[in-house]
């Protein structure tokens, strides 16, 4: 039986109400837009990469609690990491969101709070939007002008 409290854990509600790293990033070296046409969520992600390391990351936009909290948690977890490390986190989260057998290991830290989402298949896209946008932004820094990311 799916449990709402499993989806809307305290960490999720907290990051939804008080998103971290929210707002513009004037010194960004890369950005990408994410769009979820199903719910109209829009997300703008800005990164400042220095020597392949994410020195700073911020996001803007409006979305549901799951997408906002996921983006907020993501910025916390990848800030300070190298591009390769961030992509590894992406892979882990992707696995967590889509594979029923995936365990939320310690290396995920607070991101483990997203594991409740996979019980709600209609909401997986909400949680994954920012992560796909991150991948696009990391590519943006390598090659400019990426297309907007869509979850459809």
């Amino acid at each position: 039986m799916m449990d709402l409290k499993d989806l809307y854990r305290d960490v999720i509600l907290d990051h939804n109400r008080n998103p971290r790293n929210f707002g513009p990033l004037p010194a960004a070296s890369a950005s990408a837009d994410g769009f979820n046409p199903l719910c109209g969520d829009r997300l703008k992600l800005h990164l400042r990469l220095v020597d392949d390391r994410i020195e700073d990351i911020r996001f803007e936009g409006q979305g549901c609690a799951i997408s906002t909290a996921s983006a907020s948690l993501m910025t916390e977890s990848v800030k300070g990491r190298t591009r390769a490390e961030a992509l590894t986190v992406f892979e882990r989260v992707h696995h967590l969101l889509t594979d029923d057998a995936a365990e939320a290991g310690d290396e995920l830290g607070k991101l483990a709070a997203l594991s409740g989402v996979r019980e709600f298949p209609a909401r997986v896209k909400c949680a994954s939007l920012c992560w796909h946008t991150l991948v696009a932004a990391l590519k943006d820094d390598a090659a400019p002008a990426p297309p907007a990311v869509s979850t459809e």
Partner: protein
Amino acid sequence: MTDISPAARTAPASARRSFDVGSVRRDFPVLARTVHGKPLAYLDNGASSQSPDAVIAAVDDYARAHHANIHRGVHTLSQEATALYEGARDRLVGFINAASRHEIVLLRGATEAVNLVAQSHARPLLVPGDEILITHLEHHANIVPWQIVCAQTGAKLVVAPIDARGDVHAEAVEALMGPRTRILACAHVSNALGTVLPVARLMAAARARGIVTLIDGAQAVAHLPVDVRALGCDFYVFSGHKMFAPTGIGVLYGREALLERMPPWQGGGDMILSVEFENTTYNSLPYKFEAGTPNIPGTIGLGAAVEYLGSLDLAAAHAHEDALLRHAQAALTAIPGLRLIGTAPRKLGLVSFVVDGVHPHDLGTILDQDGIAIRTGHHCAMPVMDFFKVPATARASFAFYNTFEEIDRLAASVERARRMFTHGPG
């Protein structure tokens, strides 16, 4: 024909029963089910409505006893299938008071019907600088087909405004009817806001100026009596699945004189009289627009839905829906931080709303856990969302089988979601 099942026969008007929501609910088997352990409260009728036993039985009976291709066999089953299919068309004539069965084209739904009119009526006629007039509250199905034909012909799309309540003022639309306006296409009822448009007046104004008119009745037919001749429109489109019939079937009503002049939209079997490689003669109306084997079970289901509606006291059913709407608006506006989107003086069928601090998508998930089905999102009306500066709304849309108790549950569940998001879990 004596072998046609009772389900497919027309009930005499004397069989009409007085409206009682409890007894009507028993006609709809799905309403008895539970979702997440709670009784289903189905408040997403604007997206698609549920089917009564009579519709399910008609489709089932066709599949079990009468299925064959139509219009082409001398054998018994083909004749029965044809009679059932054409019988449904005849019921639709009466349902919207068309002048004849030549005016009822059976298509996939409202979307396909608008596309047919755009491509077959508008496209050959439009020249650069011509105008197609729509309103700001249209469903994408009544926007995009016109944008496509504008791109094909150089015509221009003109959009009549809505006011802050989501209402459409006839004067504002009339002010945009100019010498180059060729087509007026507007909703009868808005799917995102519930606004009832002043269609009779708009049709009269358009007719006086020689403008061809199309009404998108997708959200109207289940909720109010429609008389296309009294409305005076040229085209009227609607979908079966929003009026208790299966998906994949809908109707294009067109005035015969106009349909007669339009070229076929698709080519194939059934739409022709004779085919030679040099020359093909098209079939008469409405078959000219029904290429290929159609949705026979869907059509039979739609005919059964019309018959079912005819067995109800519809005036009482519609009055019940109106009471539901008022009750919903009162119950929801009592919730702190809740804002109704769409407060036109003439509304029917639905409430759209947003709640401070709770995204509609989260609301949809929480309500679902309480067994309550609503729609959340942009409702295929992104220009309406932009107008109200919201990314999405939550929408509860009603049918006559809904109850006051279901609406109380809706309000309680919305309040629970609001508390959860503004005061933390619990």
